[in-house]
């Protein structure tokens, strides 16, 4: 191994480490709590190459309305799926689409695009925790 080889090996390992850190660890964003509107917890999620916010916190037992604002035409994001709530909804491009459900158990639930490439998370907390 000459110097160039060593440099490539070191750079390669660094690049792999960075890729994995960036996509798996760096992607965790703080949760946004839903705003309560007349008993409905509502959050608007912008869909453009991903979900913004990608992490939503809601309270158990009260209806939740996620409004997906799809600002692109990419085929990847044309559907949103909430597998734990049995929801698959088509999101027309450049329009807002509301998805409603009522979580009745605390926990963490994913929402994804039709092919599970884009991911978001809903954290359902018990009432008390949500109020504090």
């Amino acid at each position: 191994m000459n110097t160039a080889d060593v440099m490539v090996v070191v750079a390669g390992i660094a690049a792999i480490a960075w890729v994995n850190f960036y996509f798996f660890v760096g992607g965790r964003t703080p949760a946004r709590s839903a705003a309560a509107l007349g008993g409905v917890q509502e959050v608007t999620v912008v869909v453009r190459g991903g979900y913004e916010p990608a992490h939503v916190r809601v309270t158990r037992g009260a209806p939740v309305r996620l409004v997906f604002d799809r600002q692109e035409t990419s085929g990847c994001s044309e559907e949103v799926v909430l597998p734990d709530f049995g929801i698959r909804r088509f999101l027309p491009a450049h329009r807002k689409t509301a998805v409603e459900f009522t979580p009745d158990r605390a926990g963490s639930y994913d929402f994804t695009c039709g092919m599970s490439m884009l991911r978001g998370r809903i954290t359902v907390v018990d009432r008390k925790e949500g109020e504090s």
Partner: protein
Amino acid sequence: MTTRTEAARNGPGPEAAGGGDRVTIPVSGMTCAACSGRVQRALSKQAGVKEAAVNLMLGNATVSFDPAATSPDALVETVRATGYGAELPRPERTAFDEQADRDRAQEEEFRELSLKAGVSIVAAAVAMAASMPLMAADAHGGHGATVDPFMRWVMGWLSPLLERAMPWLYAVPGPVLSYGLLALTAGVMGWAGRHFYTRAWAAFRHHAADMNTLVALGTGAAFLYSVAATVAPGFFVARGVAPDIYYEAVVFIIALVLAGNALEARAKGQTSAALRALANLRPETARVLRDGVEVELPTEEVRHGDVLAVRPGERVPVDGEVVTGGSAVDESMLTGESVPVRKGPGDRVIGGTINRTGAFRYRATTLGADSVLSRIVKLMRDAQGSRAPIQRLADRISAVFVPVVISIAIATFVVWFVAADSAPGVRAFAAAVAVLIIACPCAMGLAVPTAVMVATGKGAEAGVLVKGGEALQRARDVDTVVLDKTGTVTEGRPTVTELALAPGARGEVVASEEELLRLTASVEAQSEHPLADAVVQHASARGIVPAHAESFEAVTGRGAVGVVEGRAVAIGNARLMEDYAVRTDPLRADAERLAEQAKTPMYVAVDGRLAGLVAVSDPIRAGSREAIARMKRMGLEVVMLTGDNRRTAEAVAREAGVDRVVAEVLPEGKVAEVARLQGEGRTVAMVGDGINDAPALARADVGVAIGTGSDVAMEASDVTLMRGDLDGVASAIELSRRTMRTMKQNLFWAFVYNVVGIPVAAGVLYPAFGMLLSPVLASAAMAFSSVSVVTNSLRLRGIRLA
């Protein structure tokens, strides 16, 4: 996690919430907080409203209300009174609209992709032609050309032909050609391939990666390398590296991926063809009688109770009941029943079906979201939105797929760079690009959902509505089918066939057969049992008017008792007679004979003395026998459950070809019976009409509701059969078996494709066979792997379910 039933209510429209109902009403025309405040105040003041929230941004009002005190329609009126526009959301409209939106988007996508793919392919041919003189020059140790081994081979073969056809091309100086290629490639990337880069970037900003990331990285790296080689070839030559260019490979990769995406968009559109067909069934207009005149109105404006006119050849606009006239109606699109069904006054017609021969008028009954067609469309949409558990593994892999592939590509580069003897940089680069290009996460993501889409659509065409991916998957494992006798194996419309007085009862206990029937019918008129209904029908057919029965009591599993005109009347089986210490001996032989003929005998006692016998027969449905035989051929064990007495049950079972009978089961006992079979390690499908077996349907691994019977059954069941006959049960299981096979093939192919493709692209075969995968071939493989998965799912459309 929410329950299934709650999930099913998640559409717009009224939904139950904590004792009351909740509805979201879209409100139009609100421009400021004052507007929404006004609407909110108006709604809050309305009697029966518990809570109202008006959202200015979304333009809607969410109202919790007491359904006893107000209705969604009244709430809409309240909003309208404030001067703003409001209309109740119509889930079936939105289901139809959503389908139209989706079709438009898909059509648009297909057009755009195919145009871009077409132009790119032309550009790729041009790029290849321009690269050939460069490669030829390279062979004489001049300017560098392509290193994609496949392209090198193709071009090496084509180059002499091109040189003969267009010798002038070979006279163009090398740098001119390379700069020309640079411009062409940049044009293709910036126009046709633009979305790969913009989407990859958008995803990257969200710490996400998808197929676009891989294509963008692969082509972007190849392009940048080529640009450097074009602009500063001296830099490469000085370091002993050939200044190779990959332009034609970049253009080819973009062209092939686009072509694959276009085909995929088209195929994906076909997976929902069945839903689209259903959504298009409802006619736009209906001919409604208003003040005795036929008026053509949009179907949405038909109101409950309106009388509609339908002529031959027309579609029935909404659900209803025939008032006058008669016809044969083709219901095949909803039930899969190919023979048109005769309709006369009192018969139910379904919106979306086609009137064949006669003209009739009918009264609209269920409308909007409650109509049969809307419910089917909604059920199918929910089904297509559900996930099959088999998908979980694919989901888990998809989530980490792209970053892992990028890591593999980097590792590939490093290994090649260190290990290759000659031109390490170039080889390392080609292999890394091939890895990025060949990896295809899409095939994995499409494997299960496309099969669920096609299968639920295929089922609906045959009148078999499957509730979702999970039900579809569970139905495959069914080994035991439990049939509820009444309304499932039999017609469920029993009629009285025998009426006999007990020996010596005439004049002693009752005056005559008429008297016996009158007393019996008087008690049975208060019962809700289907057998009771048969007696009442029989009495009215003979012109007998039942009297009022006092102290009526239904004795579950035994019969009914009541007091008619001061006389105690008991109707039921031998056990009921025992309870009242009535001796049944004089009629026992008759009862047994009738039971052997698959009829249900009921003893009648008056004032504690045996008066007579009424036998009721519920004929076996046409086709039950064949359907049961088909299930047995499929290796399923068929069990029949009934509340009837053992003899009758066994006679029915013999006639229907059922081997195992569980008789004298109380309604509550059905659940226990299903649980007992499950306890034996069986996977049980329970088939019932849902009238009194909804709990058993829910308990079974797969609950099958037969006929459009009841909403409760549809709610509790996993599969709903639109047609009355049992054949749908076998079809549902057959569909499930075929679909699971398709899903497994798809997943297998998607996994194996990547598991084999990625290492080959990385060059694991090189040390042994000297084989290296060309990035261009990798792009072709990638594009067609997802197309092949969707195409395999589409094959499900061709299966025969009957």
